[in-house]
């Protein structure tokens, strides 16, 4: 009798221990199940928050940024060199400044053009200064150039928008533009042979579209890059567009400078006075008089 009671007490104690232990184990597992996240998993989740696409774009961006300066140097040096050779080998085109004067640009158009020219030139020069910042020692000089670059970009857009609308109707491609291209615009010899072009030739049209539409793209991409408010991968893309398009803009900007300052005598005066002499129009803009 005594033994069976003793056994009952032992059994009860064992039962209590098993139940208590089981409950405690279950509670612990439950709690672990709710809060458990491994360190490895947590770091993966942090990676998604901190830099979700870094591995996808960073390597490409780093190599692009380091190589883009090498693309600009041949353009800045090479394009003027080509025109120097042209100037020496062929020389500038000159026309007689007599006879009828033909009105080409109105006062407002000329004002807009020169404002755009000033701002655009400053944008190009300051942009090149930023690109070759290391050669200039960086610091406050290049910081100021960045300020000029931003200010002049806004200035250019203000005057470019109405000028774009004024010139738009004359800037669409025409069938005779191909002939102009094939004869090199008449600039490959000094002969005064009539070249097929209307108020604006194909070269001017190319410059128009690149400067105005390309300029707008440059403005928008530059605006995004200056704000740094988009995800890094997107900003990296905008920087690439800005720098590659800038390469073409710089090349055609130099071309425009050469054509207006050296290749055709009197073209700078035309943009100041608004008139061209009849002979020049008959040769370089022959379709206007037909």
């Amino acid at each position, binding site marked *: 009798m005594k033994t069976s009671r003793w056994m009952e007490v032992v059994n009860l104690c064992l039962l209590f221990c098993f139940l208590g232990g089981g409950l405690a184990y279950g509670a612990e597992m439950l709690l672990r199940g709710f809060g458990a996240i491994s*360190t490895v998993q947590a770091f993966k*989740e942090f990676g998604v928050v901190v830099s979700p696409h870094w591995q996808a774009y960073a390597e490409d961006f780093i190599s692009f940024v380091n190589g883009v300066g090498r693309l600009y140097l041949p353009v800045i040096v090479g394009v003027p060199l080509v025109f120097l050779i042209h100037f020496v080998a062929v020389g500038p085109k000159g026309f007689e400044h007599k006879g009828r004067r033909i009105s080409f640009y109105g006062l407002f158009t000329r004002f807009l053009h020169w404002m755009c020219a000033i701002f655009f030139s400053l944008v190009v020069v300051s942009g090149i200064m930023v690109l070759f910042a290391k050669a200039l020692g960086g610091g406050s000089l290049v910081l100021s150039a*960045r300020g000029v670059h931003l200010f002049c970009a806004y200035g250019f857009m203000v005057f470019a928008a109405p000028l774009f609308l004024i010139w738009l109707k004359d800037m669409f491609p025409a069938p005779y533009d191909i002939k102009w291209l094939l004869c090199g615009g008449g600039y490959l010899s000094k002969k005064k042979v009539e070249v097929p072009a209307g108020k604006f030739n194909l070269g001017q049209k190319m410059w128009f579209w690149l400067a105005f539409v390309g300029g707008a793209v440059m403005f928008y991409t530059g605006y995004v890059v*200056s704000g740094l408010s988009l995800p890094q991968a997107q*900003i990296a893309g905008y920087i690439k567009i800005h720098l590659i398009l800038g390469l073409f803009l710089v090349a055609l900007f130099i071309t425009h400078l050469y054509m207006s300052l050296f290749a055709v005598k009197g073209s700078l005066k035309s943009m100041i006075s608004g008139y061209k002499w009849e002979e020049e129009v008959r040769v370089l803009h022959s379709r206007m008089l037909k």
Partner: protein
Amino acid sequence: MARMKFLCDIERCIDCKGCVIACKEGNGVPVGINRRRVITINQGKPGERSISIACMHCSDAPCIAVCPVSALYQRDDGIVLVNKDVCIGCGYCFIACPFGVPQFPKGDTFGKRGVMDKCTFCAGGPAPNFSEKERRLYGQNRIAEGKVPLCAAMCSTKALLAGDGDKIARIFQERVARRGTGAKAPGWSTAYK
């Protein structure tokens, strides 16, 4: 030679942001610039964890690789610093950084950014040690005083470790060992099964 590193023990970080405040106040960091920040995942849910992030002073730092004026450089002890007299604020370092660390003061005309600012590991900058210029441009130089960075010194749970990479890695390993491994470690089922 020792290479300085930060290591945040996410099992200890309690998102108190003491490190952020210590850094800002101690180094005179202007409003709008955060050299250090705390990021929390699963906030208010099971599995909530926080991490304190600043410049990680990468061994092969991408910011140095993209800097067009070599304003960023690495000291022999691994600390990555910026020379604010040379920086042009182009922002390339911000895009190249895997942790989004570089900061730029805003508010100038036409949205022009100022020069880059980031964690200096409380090692000042290229200006002479303890000079007024160093203090104004970069903040304290606690490394030159033989102290750990402010953020790590102020961390109440000692989640944020700073110092020789090998030594802080050892401290972290010891902590992991003490916390337990295998089936007793938090997250065992997620990480290893």
